[in-house]
């Protein structure tokens, strides 16, 4: 057995993970106590990493048009098709669409091949959807994409403003550090700005529940307020900034009443926030997808940055505007230039930059300029302009806005290559060529987290099947295309050395991103590399960006950005649609969806609504609800949430066609993008709410996924030993029973046994099938949703081995002795809602007491906000 330190592949916090490996198996993972990001902490997703490995559902071999082929043939056809496309339609007919899940080395090689040797800028990435507005805002204000804060600043500050961030769920470890700092420093204040009351509001002194998209009003108003209360840092402004005048002109008249009108906030709350901000020098404004995923995301980020420039609160300890990224290596991608509007190593497309990079690469066919950004890229494919598209480690059929457009693009594009670790994704379904890419734990490389810390992802187990690291795949292609001498990499270390060398190449302090110190790192040192925060120029003496007041614009001065706030355009329907992440799922669930305990906190696809809105639509908790607009629709269970403001709704982003019938939030999202960053407005759509009547509800446990596409609704989760599917349809149970009976696995009489129950008048149909003494499936259908068995009991069926004589008794749908734990709240210790309410009723009156009684909340702490909520509820409810 050995321990190996690596980095978590989920969110942008970039926690260090220590993995226990025995005979080529990851036994378990723990937080790496020495990693600066988490110092030993892990969230529930990270804790469950070991359970995401293994061959199940993996893409293990290259396949061309559904037929398995060798890697040699795969690389050859890749090269031939690419060359043919370029010759017939020109360099811009070819594109790569990358991912914040890729490692820096993968990113570097793909970016170099496209921009230096294929003559196109068409390399973009799903990071476009994540934080490109922050990149654009940083470049506008600082002259370079630099994040001027660290997690320590978040801990040390006296006022933390969280804007459009539900860190408690999306960046749990940072949130834990915030809570810990709060306990240590009672004076510390936290303001959460979010249209939803989220778990993160649990720690907030003030929650500003603004109208969606009105953030820029709030911060433009703040800037004006800072002027009126004379809280500007004149010296800093004069010495290190430009453009305050124009900016104030642009924002003229946005006073508290105007802000109140635009944001829907009480003036008193706004004033409170402004006062605190004005009075508190040590202020960090942490902003995330809530502001970035907007048609005016870049302006919103700059509105925030403006306030920090005006107060000189930047480049100093415990101060600054802090963009938290969503993905594990969005930052690494930005560093290599893996975005269509960046060149490489924080250089752009200015002639001298292009020339510098060309010379460094020995490029034979340098791109003349930027390429197509994600949404434009898929639009171009839909228009027939992009004819060769290579998608790496991402699932745009689910994640890009206007899914219908994306589907058209993937259908129209001549040759679609998908390299992924998962065999069945909504995107892979469109692939001509499928390439098995090695996932987390099976490959080597580096990632950079939200606070500019570069750390290693290490290989823990051998790559499954014929999986290969992405850098290797791209390198092989480059060689097949005849660029071998320029892609002479034998390891990720070799790629990293070149990347580091480029960051230092003709830099001389002109670019903050300089890791020249690592340009000659030996394979051994790379193998042992410990986390390191850039910059790290050769010869040491790294300066913390902006600490010297120097920015990376031509003038060396930061720029205030003049902007006029705008609210999102309103079309199609009254209901506002917001989107985001759940606590225990990651992206499109290709990995987390395989882990039973990660599907227990939120099980079946549901849509969160304001309780009054729901009541008006005649909807109760769990009823079927449809949210639609001319672009598309989603159908899910109504989840009543007082944290959702009236007139709004929340759709989680995780559900793909692999897990539910109609759950893709992107189906509703128009392909509206920010003019500066090209980032889509993924957090805002308009739609109408309907309540389709369901005549049949069902729960199905099955060993294998059962195709339910004929039904109006289905949603599937992994459970021990199989899957649990919730079904609903407008047809009567009898009809649904007939339909499903045709699909369900049958067994020859010899080794199978079927038991069935029917009460036709009640629409109550049940069936269970044993094959070789093992339960193959158990199906329960009923007109009434409430008449179905407990989900907890259904989820346990895969573990039990019911004896043949018990099979018909299993159809009772319940075991008199079984006690249902209820919906899982603490995923680490698998503690359910019913247990927790029981303990509270039994006198547990604090999170700590619950921890002692049930251990819930004592590991990753992600569920602590929810525990507090339950403790806060009146005891009467607890009994229910």
């Amino acid at each position, binding site marked *: 057995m050995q321990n190996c330190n690596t980095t978590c592949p989920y969110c942008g916090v970039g926690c260090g993970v220590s993995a226990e490996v025995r005979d080529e198996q990851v036994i378990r993972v723990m937080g790496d106590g020495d990693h600066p990001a988490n110092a030993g902490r892990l969230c529930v997703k990270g804790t469950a990493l070991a359970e995401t490995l293994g061959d199940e559902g993996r893409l293990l071999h290259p396949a061309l048009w559904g037929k398995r082929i060798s890697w040699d043939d795969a690389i050859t056809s890749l090269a031939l098709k690419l060359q043919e496309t370029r010759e017939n339609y020109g360099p811009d007919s070819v594109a790569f669409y990358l991912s914040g899940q890729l490692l820096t080395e993968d990113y570097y090689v793909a970016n170099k091949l496209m921009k230096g040797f294929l003559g196109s800028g068409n390399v973009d990435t799903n990071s476009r959807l994540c934080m490109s507005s922050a990149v654009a805002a940083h470049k506008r204000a600082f002259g370079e994409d630099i994040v001027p804060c660290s997690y320590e600043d978040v801990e040390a500050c006296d006022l933390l403003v969280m804007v459009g961030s539900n860190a408690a769920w999306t960046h749990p470890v940072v949130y834990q550090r915030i809570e810990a700092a709060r306990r240590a420093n009672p004076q510390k204040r936290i303001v959460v700005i979010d249209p939803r009351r989220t778990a993160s509001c649990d720690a907030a002194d003030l929650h500003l529940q603004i109208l969606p998209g009105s953030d820029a009003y709030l911060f433009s108003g703040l800037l004006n307020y800072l002027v009126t209360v004379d809280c500007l840092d004149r010296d800093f402004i004069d010495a290190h900034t430009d453009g305050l005048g124009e900016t104030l002109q642009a924002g003229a008249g946005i006073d508290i009443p105007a802000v109140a009108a635009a944001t829907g906030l009480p003036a008193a709350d706004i004033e409170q926030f402004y006062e605190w901000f004005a009075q508190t020098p040590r202020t960090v404004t942490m902003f995330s997808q809530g502001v970035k995923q907007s048609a005016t995301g870049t302006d919103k980020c700059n509105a925030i940055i403006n306030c920090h420039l005006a107060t000189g609160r930047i480049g100093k300890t415990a101060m600054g505007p802090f963009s938290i990224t969503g993905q594990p290596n969005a930052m690494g991608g930005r560093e290599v230039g893996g975005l269509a509007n960046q060149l490489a190593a924080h250089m752009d497309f200015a002639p001298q930059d292009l020339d510098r990079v060309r010379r460094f690469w020995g490029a034979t066919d340098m791109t003349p300029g930027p390429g197509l950004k994600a949404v434009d890229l898929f639009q171009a494919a839909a228009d027939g302009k992009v004819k060769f598209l290579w998608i790496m480690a991402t699932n745009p059929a689910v994640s890009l806005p206007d899914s219908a457009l994306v589907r058209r693009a993937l259908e129209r594009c001549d040759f679609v290559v998908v390299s992924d670790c998962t065999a069945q994704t909504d995107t892979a379904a469109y692939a001509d060529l499928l390439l098995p890419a090695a996932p987390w734990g099976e490959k080597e490389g580096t990632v950079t987290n939200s606070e500019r810390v570069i750390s290693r992802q290490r290989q823990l187990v051998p790559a499954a099947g014929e999986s290969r690291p992405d850098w290797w795949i791209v390198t092989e292609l480059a060689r097949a295309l005849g660029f071998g001498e320029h892609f002479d990499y034998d390891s990720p270390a070799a790629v990293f050395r070149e990347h580091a060398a480029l960051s230092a190449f003709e830099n001389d302090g002109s670019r903050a991103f300089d890791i020249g110190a690592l340009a000659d790192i030996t394979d051994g040192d790379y193998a042992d590399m410990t986390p390191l925060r850039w910059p790290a120029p050769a010869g040491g003496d790294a300066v913390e960006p902006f600490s010297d007041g120097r920015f990376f614009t031509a003038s060396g001065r930061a720029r205030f950005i003049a902007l006029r706030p705008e609210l999102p355009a309103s079309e199609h329907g009254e209901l506002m649609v917001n989107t985001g992440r759940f606590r225990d799922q990651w992206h499109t669930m290709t990995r987390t969806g395989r882990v039973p305990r990660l599907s227990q906190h939120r099980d079946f696809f549901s849509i969160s609504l304001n309780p009054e809105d729901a009541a008006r639509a005649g909807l109760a908790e769990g009823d079927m609800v449809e949210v639609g607009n001319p672009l598309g629709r989603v159908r899910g269970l109504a989840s009543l949430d007082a944290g959702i403001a009236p007139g709004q709704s929340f759709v989680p982003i995780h559900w793909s066609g692999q897990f539910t019938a109609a759950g893709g939030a992107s189906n509703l999202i128009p392909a509206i993008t920010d003019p500066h960053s090209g980032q889509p407005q993924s957090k805002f759509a308009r739609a109408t709410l309907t309540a389709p009547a369901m005549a049949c509800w069902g729960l199905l446990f099955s060993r294998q996924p059962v195709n339910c596409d004929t039904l109006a609704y289905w949603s599937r989760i992994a459970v021990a030993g199989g899957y649990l599917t919730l079904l609903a349809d407008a047809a009567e149970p009898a009809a649904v029973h007939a339909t499903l009976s045709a699909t369900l696995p049958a067994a020859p009489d010899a080794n199978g*046994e*079927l*038991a*069935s*129950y*029917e*009460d*036709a*008048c*009640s629409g*109550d149909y049940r069936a269970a099938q044993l094959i070789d003494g093992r339960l193959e499936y158990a199906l329960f259908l009923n007109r009434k949703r409430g*008449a179905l068995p407990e989900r907890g009991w259904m989820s346990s069926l895969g573990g039990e081995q019911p004896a*043949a*004589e018990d*099979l*018909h*008794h299993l*159809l*009772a*749908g*319940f075991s*008199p002795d079984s006690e249902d734990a209820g919906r899982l709240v603490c995923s680490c210790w698998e503690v359910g809602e019913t247990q927790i309410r029981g303990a509270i009723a039994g006198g547990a009156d604090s999170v700590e007491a619950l921890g002692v009684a049930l251990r819930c909340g004592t590991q990753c702490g992600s569920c602590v906000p929810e525990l507090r909520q339950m403790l806060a509820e009146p005891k009467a409810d607890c009994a229910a």
Partner: protein
Amino acid sequence: MTRKLLIVGAGMATAYLLQELQRYRHALDITVVGDEAEACYNRVLLSNVLAGENSESDLGMLGEAGENAPHIVTGRRIASIDTAAGIARDDAGDDYFYDALVLATGAGVPRPDVDCDGVAGVRVFRTLRDARELRALPSKGRRAVVVGGGLLGLEAAHGLNELGFATCVVHRNPVIMNRQLDAEGGLQLQRDLERRGIAFSLGAQLAGLETGPGNHIRGLRLADGQCLPCDLLLFATGIVPGTALARDAGIETARGILVDGRLRTSANDVYALGECSQFGDTCFGLVAPIREQAAVLAAELAGAQHEPFRVADYPTQLKISGVEIYRAGELDDSAEQLVLRGRDVYRRLVVRDNRLVGAVLVGDKRGGTWYSELIAQGRAIDALRPGLLFGREVGEALAAAA
């Protein structure tokens, strides 16, 4: 002063009557006259004896001989009764004077509807003697055909099958036990018995016999022309109440000896109970009502008070070759049905107007008595409905949880 009580017939009805009489301090001098060599054995267990699952010693039903123990005469058949004089005479010419007479003459086997006279290897299965003789027959490699797919026929078939006969049951109705079961329940039981090696020829009309040397049975011909070869042909086509003695004595009979709610016949001081009796339109073949008759009659004879006998809806509760069967109430196909089907199980409940009205359970009779209660009480079952078919524990637990 003591009264003389004469009981004609020494079957199970008599055994129950004697048990019931022991409850009372009575001054009856009891004599029982039975024509079999053994008195008061448990006929229900005969098929188990045939199958070797019970021994003869398991059959005894008489309590310890004690105070006013009955005087039991076996091997004698009462040939005539003079109800005016209060005298009965047996087939050896002995007279029995009585103050009260109980006819418990049981039932016999109906005449086969094919001519079997003088054919060897054609038998019935009714008495312990029959059982002994059947057990004595060579069975290995031999084939037996049982005519009658009712309770008696199936029990006999099970016994013969266990003895080693290759056994086939011939039944007029397409469904076995069609008196107690519905078509699907009958089929379920048939499947179970087939799995145990018993063959079936259903919806069959008898045409005639095939005989061989020594006029020994060789096969049974059916109306459809097919012939079922056999070395043994057993008739188990139900029972006919034993009324001859009563009829000859001028006592009113119909299918059975007519009795009133106090089990009195048309003749003074003459009573009847058991398979020979008829109450209203009903004759009796199952244990439950006959025990009830015995209780009523014992009280009557002891001069004690008792509710008069009524025909209640007695659930049928059986075990045929290990397969549990329970049937209660009416199986109204036009009402609401709750049905559970498994490999070894068929359970059906019939619900009308939110009341349980019928139940048939094959292979698993869990909850049977509960269903009978619910049927009798006529309780509303909507709360119990989701778990009703899974027995009391589950049904009530689910109702409580809802």
